[in-house]
């Protein structure tokens, strides 16, 4: 009897339903946050000008909301992927979802009602030193909301870790260390699937990341309470980026695991945990924690060795991502005779997005380039590429696959056209951001001068195309959701 067969159908159903809840809520949040992103681009293009204070509040909400929404969707996908083989506790998963939504509510109200506009980085000492732009309570509410989302992610990671370790029979087995250190000579029969490996790796890094976030956030609450007068700004910034940057990266790894588990359904080829895959994913445990200093190259007080770590780490983390996901994904598709369906189109777009966004990140992580490019729209260009066209494409593709599999609903030519249009719109949008970065247009400026506005205007049109396509796919999912909820468990 295989491990997959040991999961009772009702447990599989519970996991699928929790996955659907995470995916649908995450997707809905992404659409709403995308509208706020459109408002920002309309403002910068001079097409719908809003007050600068409002722009920064919207920017803050868009940034934090998009990270939280992408994370939720990817977390949901991982639940669906693991649910067929690993016994997950529904109580922990649903509690984490509720906690995450309550935390997101704090950020929504802190920004839209309280005008909090310190950006998603909420960089010390800005939250409590707004020069009257927002109150101390608004800063506290935003930080508290982020803390709740982080705690929700911690609960999720602990559950993932417990479940994968229990399933494999130990942490070493969950990471296939015996297989790894024997160069594939021992333990080949019990190597976890790539998705299970990613789950364990992300869970370990997730715990480290949330702890880093606590190191940043807890002193902020102590400052607000008057218990301490301040913290070392550079120390705080290091931990903030270790938290935020790593969390954003882990989202993509979670989303990539959905491709490892789902693409084989379409290609008919197994995505095996070969020795290079096991090595690559184990290296991610360390490598994903290293690149964050590339956000601090312009901090002259930062020790030089950390700057070097940032550059090497940024290059290093690209290697397993490229070998495991990009090459692995292309190897799956190449000459497989796979039909282009919505899920596979979105997965292919995601592979493209992760590659291009990753190249943009590697370029920006090169110290001499970073000195010129970091405060331009080049940086939003790279992270929008691997979020919008990478993580979101993977998660949306998986959501479409899961809902289709459970509801038994088919897809039409319009569905496939919408998937391609989503990629086209997204590509045009990020291309315009890259062009603006190439023109040295500064980022985080509420108002753009006329000479900077032509790419902004073109990008608005592309956002419109992408949004319509995404809304079409979302609408199809919504129509089938009831049937999917009541439907049969997906094959493991």
């Amino acid at each position, binding site marked *: 009897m295989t491990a997959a067969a040991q999961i009772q159908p*009702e*447990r599989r159903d*519970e996991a699928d*339903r*929790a996955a659907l*809840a995470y995916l649908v809520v995450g997707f809905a949040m992404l659409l709403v946050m995308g509208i706020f992103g459109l408002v920002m681009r309309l403002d910068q293009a001079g097409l719908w000008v809003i007050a600068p204070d409002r722009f920064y509040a919207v920017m803050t909400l868009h940034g934090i909301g998009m990270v939280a929404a992408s994370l939720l969707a990817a977390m949901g996908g991982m639940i669906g992927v693991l649910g067929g083989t690993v016994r997950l*506790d*529904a*109580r922990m998963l*649903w*509690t984490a*979802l*509720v*906690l995450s*939504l*309550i*935390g997101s*509510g*704090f950020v929504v*109200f*802190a920004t839209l*009602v*309280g*005008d909090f506009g310190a950006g998603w980085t909420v960089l010390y000492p800005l939250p409590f030193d707004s020069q009257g732009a927002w*109150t101390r*309570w*608004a800063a*506290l*509410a935003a930080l*508290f909301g982020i803390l*709740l989302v982080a705690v929700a992610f911690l609960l999720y990671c602990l559950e993932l870790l417990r479940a994968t370790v229990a399933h494999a029979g130990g942490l070493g087995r969950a990471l296939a260390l015996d297989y790894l250190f024997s160069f594939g000579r021992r333990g080949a029969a019990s190597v976890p699937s790539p998705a299970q490996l990613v789950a364990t790796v992300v869970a370990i890094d997730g715990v480290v990341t949330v702890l880093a976030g606590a190191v940043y956030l807890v002193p902020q609450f102590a400052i607000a309470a008057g218990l301490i007068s301040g913290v070392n700004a550079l120390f705080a910034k290091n931990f903030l980026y270790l938290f935020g940057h790593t969390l954003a990266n882990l989202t993509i790894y979670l989303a990539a695991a959905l491709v490892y588990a789902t693409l084989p359904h379409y290609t008919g080829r197994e995505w095996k945990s070969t020795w290079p895959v096991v090595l690559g994913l184990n290296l991610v445990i360390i490598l994903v924690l290293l690149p964050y200093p590339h956000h601090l190259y312009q901090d002259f007080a930062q020790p030089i060795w950390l700057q070097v770590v940032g550059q090497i780490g940024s290059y290093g983390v690209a290697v397993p991502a490229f070998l495991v996901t990009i090459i692995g994904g292309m190897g799956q598709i190449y000459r497989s005779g796979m039909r282009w369906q919505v899920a596979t189109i979105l997965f292919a777009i995601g592979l493209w997005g992760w590659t291009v966004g990753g190249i943009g990140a590697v370029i920006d992580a090169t110290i001499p380039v970073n000195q010129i490019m970091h405060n331009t729209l080049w940086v939003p260009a790279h992270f929008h590429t691997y979020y919008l066209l990478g993580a979101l494409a993977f998660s949306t593709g998986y959501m479409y696959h899961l809902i289709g599999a459970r509801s038994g609903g088919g897809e039409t030519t319009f569905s496939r056209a919408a998937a391609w249009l989503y990629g086209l719109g997204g590509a045009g949008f990020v291309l315009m951001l890259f062009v603006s970065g190439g023109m040295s247009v500064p980022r985080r400026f509420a108002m753009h001068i006329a000479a900077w506005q032509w790419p902004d205007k073109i990008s608005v049109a592309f956002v419109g195309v992408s949004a319509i396509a995404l809304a079409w796919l979302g609408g199809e999912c919504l129509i089938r959701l009831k049937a999917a909820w009541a439907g049969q468990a997906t094959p493991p």
Partner: protein
Amino acid sequence: MARRRWKHPAMLVCGLAVLAAAFSPPLDSLADRFFAAHMFQHLLLMFAAAPLLVAARPWQPEAYPLPQAWAERLAAVRDRCARILRGAAFMLHQGVALVISTAVLWIWHIPALYDLALVHEPVHVAEHLSFIAAFALFWRPLFAGDGRSGGLASNLSRAVYLVASAMQGSLLAALITFSDRVVYRAYLAIPHPRALPALADQQLGGAIMWFSGALCYAVVAGLAMRSRE
């Protein structure tokens, strides 16, 4: 088994203790002067006393270590009350309970009504009783077992129920916290210490309502969710 028999009485005692603490002179007199203390008092009533009293299931004397005759007599009283209140049974529906608890919370925070309660003790008592009753109705579906006994049957419905309530409470608290003027003008007539002027008191009260309320919802989520549905 014996320990289970004492679970409900223990919760009843805790619920009553919280009620006593909420209405005890130190907090009650502070609540008359400071908005923040008043919000803390409301939190005790809605988020501690009400769920504890509901979880204690006082309507189930069989769950208590009472002599058989007493339990039967109390059950008979309960059944008689249930017959009298049959027309109000619709209020036990989850959707209705959510609407009632939301409405009660918002109505009592309308400035004119809030100020009225602050200066007229009978209105104030009515406010507190309505908070306890409305939130007892609200918590009941989360602790009432499965769908057949009027409880929320799935983790999805529990999650939607909790998040919907948390969001409306958050919105009200955020509006109070971020208001740049004193909303409840009755406090302007009450002398405040220099360290905590009326506006700062209002912001602190809103934040207590918002932050502590969210933590309560989070704790309840952990207790109400099921590993297996």
